[in-house]
């Protein structure tokens, strides 16, 4: 499709809900849920691996206000997964609502339903449980083929063959390659071999997990939840509870942040179960502690990279082995690991002769991981971009020039990315522009500030995808109203990203109307057309195209109705935004057409269109960090972070910029301050914001973001995606800067002041 002139796409339109949000109106789950619901709380396991020998709720039930208490004996015995993925899910069916076998500190033991919080809390303390404590698998490096099995059960059920085996603690495993990597490595002038470790960091969205449920006026289960995946959630609940999908309705109000956390149905099943049992409204609100210890964080990964290159810096071979820690359950385990290779190796398509990518995903007795922005790419890119920086250092080549010699460029086919074409790729321009705005030449060398502090810079590149190729489905319904305005109904979930607004911008440009004339509604399984949901950087690219298709079809319908009004052939009229014009110049206004659609009419003034893409065009990005490091204390301050992003067409530059800035800030947190550790018994230490330090506005330095646009021919208005890629560059870029300042490569995150102060220069 040729590049169109646009009135709204490419403009910084305000988010449609912005004033509601900024003025504190009641728009979130807890604000809109009717009062008087039963309070649902969970008794959680104090042990990392244990069997409930006996459980006695007699005394707890006597607490005034307690309505009921449920244990493993009360729930359906059909295993399911909480992963919000397209059926058949790659994640194994390994959960019960409550299981007699507890697999991590925080695994639910009992569900308490009470009239108020105090009663629920008191009852929780009075439930008597006798545990048979088992050995636990707490180090993911020892999980594979460990005699202790996290899932010994016989009804463990994988729907897809992803190389999993519960009798080996394996969620998934696999290998893919192109060329003979050992052969090429043997012929390289230099081979580097290092292992990089990233932790199970938390999304820490400001609104914790929460769900309200009741029975609607037809007696069906109605679920109001802070979720990115209304349709997947309905399917998950249907299987977990054993009730038909037609008996369930899932809707989301505004969402207080997701970042992938809410692509897993973390909280929905518990109040839903209570409502089905009692017939009464029920609500669960996770505390911050529960969100930290029993949520759906990033998969801890250890990525071993072997890189082979020539003396002149030509990167010829990459060999990756990723070990991923899925924790106690397999949600998103088989899929996240793939991105650690698929979204890192292709960055070097320009010179690569061979690659191999092998992986194991293991169960451990730690919190189950899930989906977090970047989804494995973040971990793989930390490893690959770090080792490329190490190569630059070894060869005394500027790391930006080294990348210029090797990077993927527009028009190339990417063997490590399913042989997809780089239709639109401005990575080279991103690098050139970032070098310029950052003043790389002058900032890259270490500068001693003379007060015990040094300033140093680092660089990294990144890519991601735009939706899941051949899987994700986006749909849009567009309807004409009597006054010539439109309703756009979608099943994607705006979790603060602004997708409701950018989709309305696209619709307004397609329909040649003011963006204010497009009202947006999402998402409700009873109302919305099917959408996989908002994840995998899919909404702009996949759902956006569905919006474009729906508008094109609606224009045909409008022309048909208009032609009838004008008494001419539909083929002879043209759509002009506020009217339809016949060949002879006569017009029918949109308002007249809309009213005509309601009288003696057989052509719907609404259309639903669906879109799916066989490819997932990568956005690209370059990030550069300048830090100041205190050599005595190891304290690191990010002074400036510059980034240039190629997201195709930035549909709304203001929102794309804030996505980028927000992703960089999260990346800075993951790199420097957000730690995830456990005590010897597997109990998480960083269970509150006291210990889990997400960056404040004093910790992120100055962020400067620009765009180098490309035009993706398969995307709506040339757009690709922006939501996830933005978190991928800070870890390698900052680790690079820290090495420049200290001479030490840190290959494990987070790089805390203690680690830096104690760091020994690398001998490798």
């Amino acid at each position: 499709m040729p590049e169109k002139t646009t009135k709204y796409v490419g403009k910084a339109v305000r988010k449609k809900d912005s004033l509601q949000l900024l003025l504190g109106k009641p728009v979130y789950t807890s604000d809109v849920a009717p009062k008087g619901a039963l309070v649902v709380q969970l008794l959680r396991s104090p042990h990392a691996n244990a069997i409930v020998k006996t459980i006695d709720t007699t005394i707890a039930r006597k607490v005034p206000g307690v309505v009921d208490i449920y244990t493993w004996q009360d729930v359906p015995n059909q295993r399911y997964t909480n992963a919000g993925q397209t059926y058949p899910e790659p994640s194994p069916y390994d959960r019960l609502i409550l299981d007699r076998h507890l697999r991590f500190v925080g695994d639910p033991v009992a569900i308490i339903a009470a009239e108020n919080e105090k009663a629920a809390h008191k009852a929780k303390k009075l439930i008597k449980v006798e545990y048979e404590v088992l050995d636990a698998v707490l180090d993911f490096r020892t999980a594979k083929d460990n005699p202790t099995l996290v899932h010994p059960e016989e009804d463990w059920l994988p729907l897809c063959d992803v190389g999993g085996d519960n009798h080996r603690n394996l969620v998934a495993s696999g290998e893919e390659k192109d060329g003979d990597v050992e052969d090429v490595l043997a012929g390289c002038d230099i081979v580097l071999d290092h292992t990089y470790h990233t932790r199970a960091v938390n999304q820490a969205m400001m609104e914790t997990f929460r769900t309200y449920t009741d029975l609607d006026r037809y007696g069906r289960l109605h679920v109001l939840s802070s979720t990115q995946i209304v349709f997947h959630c309905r399917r998950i609940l249907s299987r977990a509870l054993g009730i038909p999908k037609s008996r369930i309705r899932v809707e989301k109000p505004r969402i207080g942040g997701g970042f992938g956390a809410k692509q897993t149905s973390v909280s929905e099943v518990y109040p839903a179960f209570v409502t089905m049992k009692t017939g009464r409204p029920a609500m669960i609100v996770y505390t911050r502690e529960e969100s930290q210890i029993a949520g759906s964080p990033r998969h801890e990964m250890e990525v071993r990279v072997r890189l082979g290159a020539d003396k002149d810096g030509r990167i010829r071979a990459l060999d990756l082995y990723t070990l991923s820690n899925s924790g106690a359950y397999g949600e998103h385990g088989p899929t996240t690991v793939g991105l650690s290779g698929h979204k890192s190796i292709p960055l070097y398509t320009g010179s690569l002769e061979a690659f191999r990518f092998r992986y194991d995903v293991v169960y451990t007795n730690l919190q189950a991981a899930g989906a977090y922005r970047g989804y494995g790419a973040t971990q793989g890119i930390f490893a690959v971009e770090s080792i490329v920086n190490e190569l630059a250092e070894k060869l005394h080549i500027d790391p930006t020039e080294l990348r210029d010699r090797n990077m993927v460029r527009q028009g190339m086919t990417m063997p490590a990315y399913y042989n997809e074409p780089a239709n639109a790729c401005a990575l080279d321009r991103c690098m050139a522009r970032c070098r310029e705005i950052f003043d790389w030449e002058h900032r890259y060398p270490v500068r001693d500030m003379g007060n015990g502090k040094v300033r140093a810079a680092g660089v990294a590149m990144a890519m991601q995808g735009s939706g899941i190729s051949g899987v994700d489905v986006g749909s849009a319904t567009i309807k004409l109203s009597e006054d010539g305005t439109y309703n756009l109904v979608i099943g994607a979930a705006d979790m603060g990203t602004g997708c409701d607004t950018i989709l309305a911008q696209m619709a307004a440009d397609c329909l040649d109307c003011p963006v204010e004339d497009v009202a947006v509604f999402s998402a409700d399984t009873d109302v919305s057309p099917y959408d996989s949901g908002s994840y995998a950087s899919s909404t702009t690219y996949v759902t956006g195209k569905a919006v474009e298709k729906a508008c094109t079809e609606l224009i045909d319908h409008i022309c048909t109705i208009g032609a009838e009004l004008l008494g001419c052939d539909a083929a002879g009229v043209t759509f002009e935004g506020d009217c339809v014009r016949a060949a002879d110049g006569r017009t029918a206004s949109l308002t007249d057409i809309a009213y005509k659609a309601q009288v003696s009419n057989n052509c719907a003034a609404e259309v639903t269109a669906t879109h799916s893409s066989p490819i997932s065009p990568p956005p690209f990005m370059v990030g550069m960090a300048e830090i100041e490091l205190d050599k005595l204390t190891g304290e690191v301050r990010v002074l400036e972070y510059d980034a240039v992003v190629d997201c195709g067409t930035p549909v709304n530059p203001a929102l794309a910029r804030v996505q980028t800035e927000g992703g960089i800030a999260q990346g800075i947190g993951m790199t420097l301050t957000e730690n995830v550790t456990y005590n010897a018994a597997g109990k998480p230490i960083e269970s509150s914001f006291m210990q889990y330090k997400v960056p404040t506005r004093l910790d992120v330095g100055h962020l400067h973001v620009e765009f180098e646009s490309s035009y993706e021919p398969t995307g709506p208005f040339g757009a690709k995606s922006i939501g996830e890629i933005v978190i991928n560059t800070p870890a390698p870029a900052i680790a690079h800067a820290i090495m420049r300042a200290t001479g030490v490569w840190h290959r494990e995150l987070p790089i805390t002041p203690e680690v830096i102060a104690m760091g020994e220069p690398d001998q490798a």
Partner: protein
Amino acid sequence: MEIKLQLNGRAVRVPDVDPDTTLYDFLRAQGCASVKCGCETSNCGLCTVFLDDVPVLSCSMLAARAAGHKVTTLEGLQAEAEEFVGFIADQGADQCGFCNPGFVMNTIALLRENPDPTDEEIKAYLSGNLCRCSGYEGQLRGIRRFLDSRNSRKEVPHA
């Protein structure tokens, strides 16, 4: 216990408040939905309200301590908020919005205390207000644009 206080300009009397009720829970029960809780450990700033015009963290204060005092939430400051929140919206920095009420409350407190703050003063004053979406830069740009616009309006008579 009975709690009497002034909430957003009107007298409120609530009998039978449990003594351990936090000000956060009390205000939510009074219909002040703008007040949010993000952490329960006084680390995030989402629950910021004014007690006698001074910002406090309502999750970490007992409702009883507010008895006899003047409590203000964003519901009671709509006009003052409207003066500048549009500038945040223009940056797209509202994002998910869950931290916005606490951020807006504390920005109002900042501007009442220091009507023309520097960027460093803004960052320092708001450092207790976490935001996981925006990376903070857009919030800063929004406040800066608001101040610039207000200052240029002020300068008009002298021009």
